[in-house]
């Protein structure tokens, strides 16, 4: 099955987010993230330039990623729009994420 979100797996795993991450498609992202559990993942990079909207279901998948894939795993949010980073901050998730304009390996 082709992945809708994850486009690179490995120590640095990369995920593309676009459109809306809501209650309808957050479970699909969750399923893909589960494939990273038990893998040796140092960094998870969410490319969020084209992400228009994130719901609480979407925020929960990020908490899930951090808790289940590894609390030592660093999570990056790249080029996220302000309307997305606003709710990340309101949720206190900015404490666990690196919100950046670009990702440099």
């Amino acid at each position: 099955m082709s992945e809708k979100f994850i486009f690179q797996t490995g120590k640095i795993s990369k995920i593309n987010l676009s459109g809306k991450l809501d209650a309808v498609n957050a479970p699909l992202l969750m399923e893909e993230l589960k494939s990273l559990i038990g893998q040796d993942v140092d960094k998870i990079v969410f490319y969020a330039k084209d992400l228009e909207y994130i719901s609480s279901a979407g925020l929960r998948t990020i908490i899930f990623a951090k808790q289940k894939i590894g609390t030592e795993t660093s999570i990056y949010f790249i080029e996220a729009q302000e309307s997305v980073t606003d709710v990340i901050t309101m949720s206190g998730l900015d404490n666990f994420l690196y919100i950046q304009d670009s990702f440099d390996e």
Partner: protein
Amino acid sequence: MDKITIQAVLENLDDMMEFLLNDLSKIISNKSLINQIRLSCEEVLVNVISYAYLEEKGNVEIIRDLSEEGMLFYQFIDEGVPYNPLLNTDPDINAPIEDRGIGGLGVYLYKSIMDEVKYERKDNKNILTFIKKI
């Protein structure tokens, strides 16, 4: 005032959101605020869809009103099991990630986003009201 009654199933979420957000961008230029309103409404609706009706499918009635004074009013009415989301304990958003529960975040967010959130149980209905000054 606009009103719809629609079956509370996930397949209808997009239609519900369209009704709730219709023309909102004409009066609210702040995209971040529109997204926060969207998140708040989605949280309520997904909760009704997921938990209100145990065996038989049921409806959710949604009312939207925008007063001339710039007050946005939403009401969500279902005939499901009694549920007052305002009784939930707020998550500790400053807790370490290992200790973060995944429940309660959405309710916490809409309580932060809306100016007023009211719950009422009346005639076997859950009635949740949002008021937001814009």
